[in-house]
Structure formats: C-alpha cells, structure tokens
C-alpha cells in the first residue's frame, strides 16, 4: 500500500519540504494519512481496490497521499464523496461514525490544503476574455457589430463553461488572430466614404421579373428542352401575390439590393389563404446567393392581412427572400406538380401584399464612433475629389490640427475604456510613444493611431481581467458583473459606482444585478449560460434523420432553442422557484412547439392578443408529461444523436447538469451499438449491460433518469412506440395534410424504472415527483454552475461550504432563481478573487 510505503513517505516529505522552502505558505496540513484513514481502507476497501483487481480503475495500494497534486487530490475527493454518500463500500453495514472515521480526516486535510492556497492566491486564476467577450468588447469600443468571434480560435471549455480560466489558454496563434480581427473591426469603424444612399420603397412581388415570367407563361406551355409542362407557382390577385408551391419558388426579391451594409427596417403585409382555418408561417431569409440566413418568421392567419415590422442587419451582398411554411399541399396530398391546372385549385397559400424596406438606418455621418475612438474633431472632409478604395469613394480623412497632441489625448481615453478602469499617470505613455514614433516616421494619423490601438487591445490589461487576491476592488467587481450578465465590458454607470467606491455595498450591488438582468443585454447571459449549462449551444451538432423525423425543420429548431431560453428568462424575471427546473405547471411555448407537443388546445385557450410565433406561458394539463427543463425539446434533442436516443447519455446528462453528481467517465468497454431496424430496442440491449455487476455499479445510477425520458424522441416529441425504418406498422397520423410513408411504428416504449435506492416510477411524471424530493440538491447544483460561470473558477472541495450557504439562503427566501443569483453575487466566492 503506497501510503504506507516508506519510499513514498520519503518522496512526499521531500516534496513538502521543498514547498515550505520555496514559499511562505504556512504548511500545517496533514502530511500523511492518519491511522484512521489507513485502517478504514485496510478493512473496507482493499478487497476490491487492490493492485491486481483495481476495481473501477482505483488501486488504493498505489494511490499516494499527495494532496498538492490536483489529480491525486481529486482521487481522494472522489473517495470521500463515494463513502460520504454511502455508495461505497457497497452494501455495507457501517455506521455513520465508522464512515466518518475516513471522511472527516480526508475532508479536513483537503480543505486545509485548498484554503491555504486560496487565501494566498485566490481561487480564480487570472483569466483572459473568451472570444464572445472579446467580440462584445470590440463592439462596445468601436460601435461596430461585425462577426469577430468566429474568426478567433475556439476557446477551451473547462468545468463546462467558456468563462473558466483554466480552459482559456493564450498562444501566439491567439495573438496573431487578435491582431487580424482588430484590424477588421477598425476597418468597419472607420467609415470614411460618402454617406450611403438611403433605400426607402414599397415593393410588390407583382413586379419581380421571375414571378412575372412564371405568371405570364401559359399553363399548357411545354418547355422545348425538358419537355415538361409549365407550372404556375404563384397566383396573382390585385392586391397580392399568393405563393402556392410547397417546394421551390423563384422567391428572391431582387428589387432591393442593400446600398451598404447596415441596419434596415423591413415591413411586410401578408396573410394566408385557403389554409383550412390553420395558420401558416412566413419565413424571411437573407440570402447571399450561397446560403440562407433565417431572419424572422411570422405566423399568418387566414384572410386577415397582418403587417409585420422588424429591423435587421443586412450586408451589401445579401437580398431578401420570403417563403411559406405549411402551404402548397391540398386535402388530397397533391402539390402544384401533380395537379392539372392551378386555376380553380384550392390549396393553402401565402399571400404577400407588399414589402417596405428602409435603410441603412443612420444617425450621424461619418459615424460618431470615429470621434469616440480617434478623438473629437479628428475627422475632416477631403477637399476635391477624394479617392477610391475597395470600401467605396473615400470622402473624409483623419487629420487633426496637432496630430501628436490629438493622439495622446485619444489614446489616454481609449486605453482607459479598454482597460475598464482609470489609468494611473503615465500608464498610457508606452502606447502614446508608439503612435508618436509612427508619426515621426511620416505615417498618417490614422496609421499611427491604428498601431497604438492594436497594441492596447493585445496588451494584458485588456485581454485579462485584472483581479488581485482577497476582496476584488470595485473596478474588478464591475467587470465581473458585466462580463457575467452581459458578456460585455462595464458601462458608465457601473464604472461611476466603482469610482465612487459604492459598488460593493450590498444594496447597490443588488440594485445593479437587477438593472443588468432587466437590460436587453442580459440575453447574453441567458443564451450563453443556459446554452452551455444545458448544452443548448450544441443544438446543431446533429441533424435529425429526415426519414425518421420528416417534421423537423429550421423553425422547429429555432423554437426549441427559444423555449429553453424563454423558460429560464421567465423563472428569472418572475423569481420563480428553482424546482420549476424539474417540474412545472406551465410551459413557455409558441404555436409551433405547442403543436409539436400536442398542446394546441391549451395554446389556443391562452391566445390573448399575441401572435402565434410569440412565446407565452401556457398552463399545462395535469396529466401532461411536459413542464421543467428535462422534457423540453431542445434538451431532448441535444441528448440524442439525430437517429436514436440512449438512456445512458440522457441519464448521465441529468446527473451532470441537473442533479450535480457526475458519474465517472465510462470505462474503455464498447458501447451499445445503436440499431434502428426495429427488431431490438435500446432497453433490451442495455439489459444485458446491466446484468454485469461491474457495469451495473454505475449504470444503476445513470440509466434510470434516462429510462424516464425514453418516451421522448430525438426531436423531443412524445412517443409511445419507437420509429423504425424496418419492421413496424404504418403510422395513422398525418404530416401537413399528407400521410406518412417515411417511417413505421416499431416496438413500444418502456419508460419505467427504479432509482438506485429502489424507488419505482412508471413514467416521467412519476420520476419528476421523485426528483422533487431532493430540491436542495438541485439548488446546490445550479448554485455551483452559476458560481463557476460567474467567477471563472470551478467549485473546489473547499468551496462547498460557501455553496451550501448560498443554497440555504436561497431556500430560506423561497428558492427563487433571481434570489439565487443575488446570493451568488453577494457571496464571498463572487466578491473575492
């Protein structure tokens, strides 16, 4: 046994000695395991965890007591947790006291070790901005909104989040790319061309050339090349063009080409015709002749023209397209390609009356941001002809009267904004000298400023959050708050409060949390926290099999993602209890999801004055399997692979993300081979797995939550039978008015099971009720995730007490989600490095 091995002790004490000599750390921690630990292990563990058996990969004979090594420490923490929770030793009759003879000295030793280090160094390592924060910071500094993050190397994710210092490494590759993208942002900021023309017109598809040709060609015209008869894909009314093709339509709106990249206001008047009283959807795309970008979608009602208005960024090489969803298939399942004539054909269609486009929407020209970055009065109109560049006709230049003075001034201001705190005297001198040296070489003001700005933005004060051990100062606090809730640099109000030294007072802090969460910028927090915590960012990792899931499309995809964000937002805004993550009597749905979930009736009852594509809380019928996050389509989709579901993956996901008791990584044995031929189900395959005692030890924890979710398919639909491409029965339901030929209905679903401690459940509803028995664990888990995201460091063994306090305070105040966030921000973990 290594911890008794004399060689080990020598090695270990040398190690400790060197630590003591190398630093001023008070090393009073336990340098060797106590007799209690040794005898407990000898008596209870070595039978399986010895050198030859190595059960679960753990050999306690070889495991050293080196608590300074993070890996080694983690092993001991795992041992502590297994024994503390009673999972180990298996089926033992040991008393609490006996278990504690191991756990309490181990806990004490480890906490001491970590606390000593934290006190000295802080628990958060200096962290750089991740690429999302980098992009937002540049957007903020330059007033631009170009895509930057996707040009940067992907950030590592540590502890599940891209805000954790450990995963945010720095390399020359990173610096090289920073310099590149800063240039791009500067190009976008420096609009020195003529003021762009403003487009402002009402357009009609009647005037679209390809639409005209399609309508003006006779239906009996036969194409001489292909030999096929002409198909009318539209119908012309006086006031509108009706789209009636289920598939392809020449629907590019060529009458509008954006005169410049920028923000445009788009208004459309449209309605549906002959849609059997059902709504249809109008999708608006931006297309650059290569790919489609779905801007928005709107639900249209029959014969009731609806005017929709929105603004969107468009680039010069994009144009608009409008496409209908739920159109073009008649009651007999026929489309425009298999009817004789469309003349008296009754089919659901999308009628577009007109489209108005206005933009680019500009305030001042040249844009105000240029002065903010390069100094007031630095922009001057060029006399005479100007010059041509690939940006267009340059009409302005940066030419202040005294370039050196102007650059000093502008750089001081810019650096202070970039560094998120006031500068000490002389702190900007390096950058100023750099700019002046460029000016002395005869380079222009713009060139000199660009060099200085690039250098400010790759310097550590910008890239790295400046926090020092102990309580962080108010400026560091301002950055922690703003990068947490906005993924952006602090705004003027936060910086002013920091300057006045008020930010760290509890009331002010709480008020700021509210202000930040109520700002639209907090969508950044919702989408990136929820996106990573619940893996929603992985929504496109797989595309559902089109044969098994023909109903899946981009609207459903977007609705899924929005549901989970809207749901979290609802809990946050109304401070609803965290137990709603497990089960709730409402869901946040739009029409598409309500249909997908079979909740159309409930949806229609709550309609009010909202449009179908808008999300709203819907009361769920008492027997509904929905409610909570685990049964939301986005979660069910990201925990499946597009073809089949696996209770193992979903079960492990719930343990990791919701309950917070992550299973050990799987051993290197072959997984289950997915099979969609209909002859065997995943549960039948898994049963074999669970018969083995070695597998069952972990799988009895992992699988049950996954079994409960078995009644949901890979796109989150509720199912009673598996879909199959081989054996099975013809489905009876219809898809958009037609019968389904793509798949068959295979074997029945079994979503029953029993928890590892023997409580049985028949289905997901019962399983959720069992989970609700341990709400504290759910709060604890979420508190840990939020703290990790917000502070940039994982929850160490020594942080557990603090998390416990956060969870307890939250519970005492009604367990609301917003309360939890207040408590996280008020905690020592958030307020110290």
């Amino acid at each position, binding site marked *: 046994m290594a911890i008794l091995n004399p060689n080990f002790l020598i090695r270990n004490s040398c190690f400790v000695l060197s630590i003591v000599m190398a630093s001023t750390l008070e090393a009073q921690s336990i340098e060797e395991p106590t007799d209690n630990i040794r005898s407990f292990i000898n008596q209870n563990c070595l039978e399986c965890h010895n050198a030859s058996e190595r059960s679960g990969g753990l050999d306690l004979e070889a495991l050293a007591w080196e608590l300074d090594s*993070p890996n080694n420490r983690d092993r001991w923490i795992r041992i502590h947790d297994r024994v503390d929770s009673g999972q180990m030793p298996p089926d033992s009759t040991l008393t609490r006291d006996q278990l504690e003879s191991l756990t309490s000295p181990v806990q004490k030793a480890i906490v001491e070790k970590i606390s000593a280090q934290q006190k000295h160094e802080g628990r958060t390592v200096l962290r750089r901005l991740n690429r999302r924060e980098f992009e937002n910071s540049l957007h903020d500094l330059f007033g631009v909104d170009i895509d930057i993050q996707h040009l940067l190397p992907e950030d590592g994710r540590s502890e599940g989040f891209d805000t954790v210092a450990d995963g945010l490494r720095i390399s020359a590759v990173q610096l090289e790319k920073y310099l590149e993208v800063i240039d791009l942002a500067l190009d976008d900021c420096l609009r020195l061309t003529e003021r762009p023309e403003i487009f402002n017109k009402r357009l009609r598809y009647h005037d679209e050339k390809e639409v005209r040709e399609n309508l003006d060609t006779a239906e009996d015209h036969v194409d001489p090349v292909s030999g096929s008869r002409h198909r009318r894909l539209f119908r012309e009314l006086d006031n509108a063009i009706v789209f009636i093709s289920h598939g392809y339509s020449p629907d590019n709106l060529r009458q509008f080409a954006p005169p410049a990249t920028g923000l445009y206001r788009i208004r459309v008047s449209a309605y549906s015709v002959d849609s059997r009283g059902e709504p249809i959807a109008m999708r608006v795309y931006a297309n650059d002749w290569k790919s489609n970008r779905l801007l928005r979608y709107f639900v249209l009602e029959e014969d009731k023209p609806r005017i929709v208005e929105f603004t969107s960024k468009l680039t010069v090489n994009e144009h608009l397209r409008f496409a209908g969803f739920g159109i073009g298939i008649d009651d007999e399942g026929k489309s425009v390609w298999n009817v004789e004539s469309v003349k008296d054909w009754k089919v659901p269609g999308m009628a577009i009356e007109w489209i108005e486009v206005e933009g680019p929407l500009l305030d001042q020209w040249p844009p105000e941001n240029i002065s903010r970055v390069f100094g007031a009065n630095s922009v001057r109109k060029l006399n005479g002809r100007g010059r041509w560049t690939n940006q267009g006709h340059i009409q302005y230049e940066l030419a202040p009267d005294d370039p050196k003075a102007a650059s000093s001034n502008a750089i001081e201001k810019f650096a202070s904004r970039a560094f998120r705190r006031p500068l000490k005297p002389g702190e900007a001198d*390096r950058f100023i000298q750099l700019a002046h040296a460029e000016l002395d070489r005869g380079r222009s003001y713009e060139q000199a400023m660009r060099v200085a700005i690039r250098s400010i933005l790759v*310097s550590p004060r910008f890239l*790295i959050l400046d926090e020092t051990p102990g309580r962080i100062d108010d400026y560091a606090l301002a950055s922690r708050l703003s990068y947490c809730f906005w993924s952006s640099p602090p705004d003027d109000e936060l910086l002013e409060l920091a300057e006045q030294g008020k930010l760290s007072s509890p009331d002010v802090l709480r008020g700021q949390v509210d202000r930040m969460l109520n700002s639209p910028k907090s969508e950044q927090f919702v989408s990136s926290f929820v996106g990573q915590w619940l893996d929603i960012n992985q929504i496109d990792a797989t*595309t559902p099999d*089109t044969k098994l899931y023909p109903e899946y499309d981009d609207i459903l995809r977007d609705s899924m993602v929005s549901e989970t964000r809207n749901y979290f937002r609802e809990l946050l805004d109304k401070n609803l209890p965290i137990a709603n993550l497990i089960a709730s009597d409402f869901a946040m749905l739009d029409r598409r999801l309500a249909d997908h979930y079979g909740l159309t009736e409930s949806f229609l009852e709550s309609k009010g004055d909202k449009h179908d594509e808008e999300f709203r809380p819907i009361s769920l019928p008492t027997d509904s399997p929905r409610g909570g996050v685990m049964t939301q389509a986005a979660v069910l989709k990201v925990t499946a692979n597009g073809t089949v579901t696996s209770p193992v993956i979903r079960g492990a996901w719930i343990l990791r993300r919701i309950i917070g008791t992550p299973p050990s990584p799987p051993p290197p044995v072959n997984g289950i081979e997915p099979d969609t031929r209909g002859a065997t189900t995943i549960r039948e395959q898994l049963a074999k797995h669970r018969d083995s005692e070695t597998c069952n030890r972990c799988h009895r924890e992992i699988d049950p939550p996954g079994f409960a979710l078995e009644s949901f398919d890979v796109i989150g639909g509720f199912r009673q039978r598996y879909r199959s491409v081989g054996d099975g029965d013809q489905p009876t339901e219809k898809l958009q008015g037609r019968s389904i030929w793509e798949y068959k209905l295979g074997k029945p679903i079994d979503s029953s099971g029993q928890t590892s401690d023997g409580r049985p459940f028949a289905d997901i509803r019962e399983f959720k009720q069992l989970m609700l028995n341990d709400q504290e664990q759910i709060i604890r888990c979420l508190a840990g995730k939020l703290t990790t995201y917000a502070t940039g460091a994982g929850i160490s063994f020594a942080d557990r007490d603090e998390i416990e306090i956060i969870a307890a305070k939250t519970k005492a105040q009604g367990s609301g989600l917003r309360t939890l966030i207040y408590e996280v921000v008020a905690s020592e973990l958030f307020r110290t490095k």
Partner: protein
Amino acid sequence: MPNQFSMTTRRTFLRASGVGLALPLLDSFLPRRMRAAETTIPRRMVCICTSLGLHAPFFFPEKAGTDYEPTPYLKLLEQHRKEFTLFNGISNPDQSGSDGHSSGMTWLTAAKHPGLPGFRNTVSIDQLIASRIGLETRFPSLQLSTDGSSQSYTSSGIMIPGEQSPSRMFAKLFLDGSADEQELQIQKLREGRSIMDTVMGEAEQFGRRIGREDKEKLAEYFSSVREMEQRLVASEAWIHKPKPRVDAAPPQDIKESNDLIGQIQLLFELIPLALQTDSTRLITVMIQGRNDVPPVPGVSIDHHNLSHHGQDPEKLRQLQLVEQAQIKALEKLLSDMKRKTEGDRRMLDSTAMLFGSNLGNANSHDTKNLPVLLAGGRFRHGQHVMLDREKNTPLSNLFVQIAQQMRQPVEQFGTSTSTSVNGLATV
C-alpha cells in the same frame, strides 16, 4: 545522417516539449540551418483524420499479415497494397469525453478524457516536431481543413485553425504579392514587432503577481509574445525571398459548402506541391463532414447522420459511398506522392502518411480500435498488423516511431509505452 541530432541534448528536447513555460520554440532552428548545407532529403509527415470514422467491416480485412483478402475500401487501394500498413487494435487510451466527438481534439495529442473537468489539451505530435524543425522551411507546419478546425495543437493546447480555402493556401505557398502588397506586408510585420515590444513592457508592469497559477498564466502570455516576435522576425526573413514556382494552376475554391469530397480532393492536391517545394515538412488535414449531404451520387442523407447508421442497410449503403469517395481521394494522393521524385527516390518514401480516424465506430462513438493506415516514410509495408483488439496499443507508440524515423530524438510522447509498434519495421 543518423547523428544529425547529436548536438541536441535531451534537455533541450524536454524543454521544447515542456508544459509551455520557457518555450524557446523557434530558437532551435538556427544551429540546424548551418547544418542544412549537407545535402539531404528532408523527412516529412502528413496526418489525415476523417473525423466521422470509417465503417470497420468495410475497412479492416479479416486475416492478419500480408496475404489478407482486400475489403471494399482496400480494393480501391489495391495498387498501393505494398506501400501501406493497416493497424488493427490501436487507439488513444481513455478517450471518453464530454461528448461522442470530443476525441477529435486529441487524435494527435493523446490527452485523456477530452472536454471533461480538468482536461487540458497538450501539444500534438506534428507541433512537437514543428517546434524542432522551426522555420527551416517557410512554414513550420500547415493545417488543411474542410471546416476550419484542425488536429494541430500548440504546446499550450490551443488549436491552430485549419485553412479551408485551397486557393488561399495556394497563394500563401506559391504566389508573391504585388509590390504594393509586399510593401504592406513588410509594414505590417514591422508594426507587429513594435506592438509586441510595447505590450511586453506593458505586461511586465501588469505581471507582478503572487499566485503560482497566475504566474503561469502570465508566463504563457509572455512566451506567446516572444514566439510571436520570433515568428515576425523569421517571416520578415522569408518575405524577401521569392516563393517557389510550381507547375500547377491556382485552384478554384469549391462553391458548394457541402461538397466534402471536392474539397478534400483540392486540399490533397496541395500536399505534394507543398512538400516538393520544401515549403513545409508537416501537414495535418482535418476531414470534418458534419451535417451536410455531400453531393456524391446515390447519397441523400447527411454524413453525420449516416455515420449513426443504426444498422439501417440503406444508410450503410450510402455511408459506404461517402467513405469510398474519401478513399479514392486518398488513392490519388498516394499515386501523386509516388509519381513525384527527388533524387532517385519517390516522395512517398520520405513522407510518413498517416490516414485514419479518432472514432473506431462512429455509430456508437467508440474510440477504440481506430482505423489507421500508414503509408510511406521508410517503413516495411504491405501488411495488416493485428494487435490486441481488447487491450489496444497506444497510438502514441506509432507517433514516436514515426518521429524517430524523421530523425527526431523523441523517446516518449502522449501515452506511449514503447518507441515502436509491434510488427512495424523500418527500412
């Protein structure tokens, strides 16, 4: 020249492969350049990873040894049969990670449990070697990719982005810009150096920290700045040398983003050109076909979905078509590498070409028993090396053996347990 590296001590090697501190990455190229006068054919490595796996029954033959019956995929490579070795029972250990595809990050690094808590990626084998060869070539290494990702990771575990555009890569390799563009380029390099100077001073002020990990973080920053400076200096040296001329027209980029095979073919065409001109000696290629339907005749389902075939015969049929198209592209690459000669040798002989995947079975995301094929590089080829399919041989053993065959004094890498793979002999 077996003793080319006798001057390089084991310590300098350890320093270069170390945790990312001190990192004198590029300074090792100076003494070597003096030695470059000795005429020698450089040794190279190309690593190609097709990240959605290869359907094993269509790939691995049943019989071990030299007289195996070719499988559907191997039939396509039959004319090169004597030029490659198949490894059956090789993989990176402990690859269960944050999701089924996370082993794509670690194919060439062998770091364990990608994406799980505590995971840090480590240097990839090509970058370890690149840090030794340095800027003896214009590019220490190249990363080609169908989606912008790559398998090359720096010593701090950061992925080097892969170039997706064949035309951009061609221009980078072979086209000298106009005088104006070159002037701009030189200006940018000079600015870059001033910027690095400035931030180095800035960082020293910022850098007075107490914590060990904080210090490490800043050391990472410092070494990045230093490496960047060195690269800028070296690039400046190269910018005045004209780029090599090649007898090939600049490629036209593929317009359809789903055309995986077309993209692979174009990227593969760059490989012999880059090696032949000694523009680089290390190339990695990432074939990442995720959610698009590749325009291969007979294929209507997206590639990722096909890889999760669930034993559906139709999906297996289509999967085979997509994978065969990739193997055909590999076949052409091998032919090109044989056709090109230097001295009396074929270029294939001096180039170790590794082709394979980080998934042994994509249907179940299994990371064991990876499909791995090695061609060229002065090894004795022509066989199907059957290793233990239960207890796999670490892929790192193969990396070490390849590195040594490239005359690199690498004794250990990743999870290696040996400096060679049983059954693979060198020439």
